């Protein structure tokens, strides 16, 4: 049994030197242009890194933030991460009131020392020291100074002077000092719209930004990292978890990674080897083989993360995964790769940033980066990407988490740059086919089938798969929130992995769907897929617009009306076209009281100017209006 404990006794060594005299934190010193729209203002941040050698780096932060209200309270936490390779040398925190008087000096016993385990992780040996300030009044200023020393030089912290909305920045500096023996690269992003001063000397580089006004959050924007300035620093010579490394291009780094992290971890027991060979017996096509192996891994394993030491970088042995039946992304990817090796299918580790935001690996300079690993099968130029941590998705399915982004494929001979599969607007189809009938009391009897593919497959899978019937009942009622008094008689959900499609069959009835008023009845024509959400109004929009993924909805619904009513009004056919997509409705009469309602809504992926936001809202308003159309019947 493991019992890794790092005693926090070193805290007692911290000195408590008082700095308060040096600074003036009176809020009257903040320019008023920085206070408008600000929940907080960074008074100054001096962030410096000293890379003394390939094996030693110190990171010092001196920062003061004035917080104006509750919404700026994110700043009340000061946290410092550490582990067996990273020591906290110093930490001090002071709190000041609005006039700049010191009101508190944080004592050593007030720090909390906790494990850095998140939701998906069973165990990790990294720890965190933190302090949470309890604001007694606003505004207040929190000032802190921290210093850490680490052996790891593969992960040099990034300078990110504006990393939040509603935050003004009075001054932020970034200083990197380094040994002359090291080759250091600086990757500067998004400097164009900001006034960043750069001073480069031998072995010392300084960045500075001043007086940045707070930026308001707005809906449908690109990710922060793509808009705001930041600097990433990479050393060609590095040291990580006890291993020395050197690389000046991706090929070299990929080779180093392969040799030090991914080699010699692929042995599996003979019994498993025989089992998978038998599984693919008689099959020639490598993709067919890969599908069987993928299914085998999905059935055998599950995602559990344990991060200890080098295990944060190097996969757990394939033989351990074979025995335990679980592992993290590296472990499960390695296991799948090991089995594919056995059956003669070529595949490679692929490093990337996983997440809904399409975040690219930084290709400019080779460095160990990313937060996720998947598997690449070259397939003669038609790359297939395998997500090995999910037991449910079809072979080669990667939407919403690893799709459409720059990645590094690690081959034994070195790293290769690639981009993952993109799901087009038309791939992301939701097809709704159904029928409903209204009786003379306004009650609806409905039967509907929804089929979702592409990114929409993922949304439906996530929402419904594996849920208890009682939960499903509520989830379906939530989905059809436009219908009251629902009485559901059937819900069947099916993860159709063959077709990469999520299928739902639903039957229900509901009283008062048709609203009776006097001699008339109003019936909402679009029962199954009402799109009524409109992005929030933004007055004086400042940021560009991005719709990160497009989609297509097609609906075909047969509508049967009560016989003893006459149709007084039927909505007209519609076609709306815009650069954001299109919307159309066609209503066809089948017989005296039966109609076919055909609806199509397409929203395109794209990047637009800030002025386009209002136009996009108009497009959605128009859709909302037509989705709310009603049939009027009269007795």
């Amino acid at each position, binding site marked *: *049994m*493991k019992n890794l404990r790092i005693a926090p006794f070193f805290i007692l060594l911290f000195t408590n030197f008082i700095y308060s005299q040096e600074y003036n934190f009176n809020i009257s010193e903040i320019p008023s242009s920085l206070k408008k729209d600000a929940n907080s203002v960074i008074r100054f941040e001096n962030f410096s890194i000293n890379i003394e050698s390939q094996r030693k780096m110190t990171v010092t932060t001196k920062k003061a933030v004035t917080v104006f209200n509750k*919404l700026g309270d994110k700043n009340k936490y000061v946290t410092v991460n550490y582990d067996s390779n990273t020591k906290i040398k110093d930490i001090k925190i002071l709190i000041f009131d609005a006039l700049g008087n010191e*009101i*508190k000096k944080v004592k050593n016993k007030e720090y*909390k020392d*906790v*494990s850095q*385990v998140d939701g998906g992780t*069973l*165990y990790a040996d990294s720890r965190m020291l933190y302090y949470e300030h*309890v604001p*007694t*009044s606003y505004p207040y200023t929190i000032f802190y100074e921290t210093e850490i020393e680490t052996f790891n030089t593969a992960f040099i912290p990034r300078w990110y002077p504006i990393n939040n909305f509603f935050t003004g920045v009075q001054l932020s500096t970034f200083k990197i000092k380094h040994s002359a023996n090291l080759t250091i690269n600086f990757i500067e992003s998004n400097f164009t719209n900001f006034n960043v001063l750069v001073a480069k000397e031998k072995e010392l580089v300084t960045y500075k930004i001043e007086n940045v006004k707070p930026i308001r959050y707005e809906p449908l924007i690109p990710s922060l990292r793509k808009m705001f300035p930041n600097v990433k620093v990479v050393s060609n010579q590095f040291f990580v978890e006890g291993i020395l490394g050197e690389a000046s291009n991706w090929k070299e780094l990929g080779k180093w990674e392969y040799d030090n992290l991914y080699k010699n971890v692929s042995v599996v027991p003979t019994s498993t080897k025989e089992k998978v060979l038998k599984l693919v017996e008689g099959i020639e096509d490598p993709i067919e083989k890969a599908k069987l192996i993928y299914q085998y891994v999905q*059935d*055998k394993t*599950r995602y*559990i993360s*344990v991060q200890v030491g080098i295990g944060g970088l190097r996969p757990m042995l394939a033989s351990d995964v074979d*025995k*335990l*039946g*679980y592992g993290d992304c590296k472990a499960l990817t390695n296991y799948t790769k090991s089995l594919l090796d056995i059956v003669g299918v070529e595949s490679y580790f692929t490093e990337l940033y996983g997440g809904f935001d399409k975040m690219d690996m930084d290709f400019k300079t080779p460095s160990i980066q990313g937060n996720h690993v998947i598997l690449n099968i070259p397939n003669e130029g038609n790359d297939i990407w395998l997500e090995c941590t999910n*037991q*449910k998705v079809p072979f080669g399915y990667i939407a919403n988490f690893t799709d459409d982004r720059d990645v590094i494929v690690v081959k034994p001979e070195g790293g290769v740059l690639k981009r993952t599969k993109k799901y087009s607007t038309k791939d992301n189809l939701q097809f709704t086919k159904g029928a409903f009938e209204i009786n003379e009391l306004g009650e609806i009897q409905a039967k509907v089938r929804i089929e979702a593919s592409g990114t929409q497959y993922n949304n439906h899978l996530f929402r419904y798969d*594996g*849920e*208890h*019937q*009682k*939960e499903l*009942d*509520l989830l379906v*009622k939530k989905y059809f*929130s436009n219908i*009251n*008094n*629902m*009485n559901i008689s059937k819900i069947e959900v099916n993860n159709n992995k063959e077709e990469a499609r999520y299928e739902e069959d639903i039957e229900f009835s509901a009283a*008062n769907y048709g*609203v*009776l*008023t*006097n001699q*008339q009845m*109003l019936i909402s024509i679009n029962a199954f897929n009402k799109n*009524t959400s*409109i992005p*929030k*109004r*933004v*007055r004086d929009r400042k940021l560009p617009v991005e719709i990160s993924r497009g989609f297509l909805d097609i609906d075909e619904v047969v509508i049967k009306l009560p016989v003893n009513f006459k149709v*007084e*009004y039927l909505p007209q056919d519609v076609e709306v076209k815009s650069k954001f997509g299109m919307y159309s409705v066609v209503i066809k009469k089948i017989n005296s009281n039966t109609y076919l309602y055909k609806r199509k809504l397409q929203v395109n992926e794209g990047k637009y100017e800030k002025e386009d936001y209002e136009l996009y809202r108009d497009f959605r*308003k128009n859709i*909302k*209006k037509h989705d*709310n159309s*009603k049939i*009027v019947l009269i007795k």
Partner: protein
Amino acid sequence: MKKVLLILFVVFTTSTLSSQNYKFGEVSKEELQEKVYPLDSSANAAILYKERKTSFEYVPNEGFNVITQVFLRLKIYNKEGFDWATNKISYYNSSNGREKISGLKAITYNLEKNKIVETKLNRKDVFDEELNKYWSQQKFTMPNIKEGSVIEWRYKLISPFKRIDDVQFQYGIPVKKMNASVEIPEYFIYKKQFKGYYPVFAKTETKSRSINFTEKERDVRDINSRATFSNVKIDLLSNLETYEVSNVPALIEEAYVNNIENYKTAIQYEYSELHWPRQPIKYYSHSWEDVTKTIYNNYNFGSEIYKSNHYSDDLAVILAAAKTDSEKIIGIFELVKQKVKWNKYNGITKFNGTRQAYKEAVGNVFDINLNLVSMLNKAGLKANPVILSTRAHGISFFPTIDGFNYVIAAVELPEGLVLLDATEQYSTPNILPFRTLNGEGRLIRDDGSSETVSLNPVKPAGIVTVLKVEIDEEGTIEGQNRTNYLNHQALSYREKYAAIDNDDIVVKLEEKKGGLEISDFELSGKKETYKPVMETYKFYSENSIDVVGDKIFFKPLFFEATTTSPFKLKKREYPINFGTTSSSKTLVNITIPEGYVIESVPESINVKLPNNYGSYRYHISTSGNVINVNSQFKINTINYPVVNYDEMKEFYKMIIAKNLEQVVLKKES
């Protein structure tokens, strides 16, 4: 010997005649082959068998340890059930000792080619994690888990404290069979608390045993005399309770439940008395009075309230300005709110203590509200602490110390009791934060006497909305809105919006009201706690009503209409808890476009819930080109019985149907 009284519940004994073998390691093929849980096909996993035995072990020179042995056999039916393969065992450490987990053994069973394959949990895959100063966790996840796997684990938890973990019978998955026993030597008296809806029944018997006891003796007349030790064989009696349950259904969360943990069937044990041989009985808790007294004395309520030097200057300023009792109360209440901020910790013991908290301006619930009690007393008012259990902490059905986790202040005035909680900035007298609205609390006086007080809000949470709407022939609506928020509605409005710019409130409102465009927004009483919250604004909307041919259709309550029900479950298992009574009133004055006449308006209605638990009144009248609507919704109860759930559903159905009904206007020909 004192007998622990048992509450007996109706018994459903099921005689299981199956040939199941419930020994560790003897998993059957049938269990591995089972595809779904027979009594609940949508269960992702099920506890096939759980055994839990708690007993006391005597260790010479150390005393009694509580030993709890757990053995679990669990079936995993599908991937959703995989989470049940991870186990976390909490254990407690303090300077007085440590709890230990020993003898952990765990195996996963799978069926491969009709053969049972075992995979053992390796010690290196078990992790210990320190959660905080007192609590640690041992964590592991089972190896080789597949759909259909059966897992087993067993371990012993050894506690030098007299801590007995809850005996839990009900989980988020069904339990096929569970046996539990708790054996307690006659010296130790525990208070038992039963909770949940699923009945369980205890069989009790008395057993005798003997232990080799090391006795320490000292001559009481001479404190300098040496203690002498001697070994004595002692016979003692133990009380053994055994439980056998089978087929316990899974417990699934529902909306508007105060706390689902209140309904999970379990028995809690609290150490209450020590009857050590030849020593006076030591009481830890007994009746509500005893419990209250124990808390009051052991947790130093009296001495914390007594401290007053730290605030006397500030208090003098307040008292100089206040004339009446209620001015004093509000002055002091606001002083405490301003001086000491809540660090989000609950508790009926001090965090910083009243004095320190006042100096550092930070404290827990105890530090803050005892300062409040202290100052009110100093000001000559009759103030006392009231201890309670928060909603998240559940309801205590039996007197136990653990049943309380929060304290507020109460002032006794001739016109009644005033309850105060200074941890929440926007709370006012008798409008307590929602977390405290959990039935009853206990008021403790400094002579140790105590009494039950109701925490239920006296005044309903209220909203009053007045709308003036003009419609034009294009179907555009324009108008003014004025909304007042009262009591708990005002509190929650401030909690949500006080920190937000008015511009951002407008954006949120526009979204909430279905895409209105709002202008001239004004808000009064946003932060002025003792004034009502009042919103006024103008609105404009193009698409919210239907113009169809020569007719116009609209819901006369417009965006204020209730169109969905919070009660969507077909059947409900647990009572509904609203936290507070409520009332919401909407008055609408509509002017129709020129050239149109009113063809029809919905009929007025008046409906009531049984026992006048709630009511809804909808009244509509017309005169010329003006329509007036008056809609009033009331919930008059805090707890609504589950037996009347269908009526509640029907109540909402009628309200929604009425709210959706349309006014029809027709063009004059």
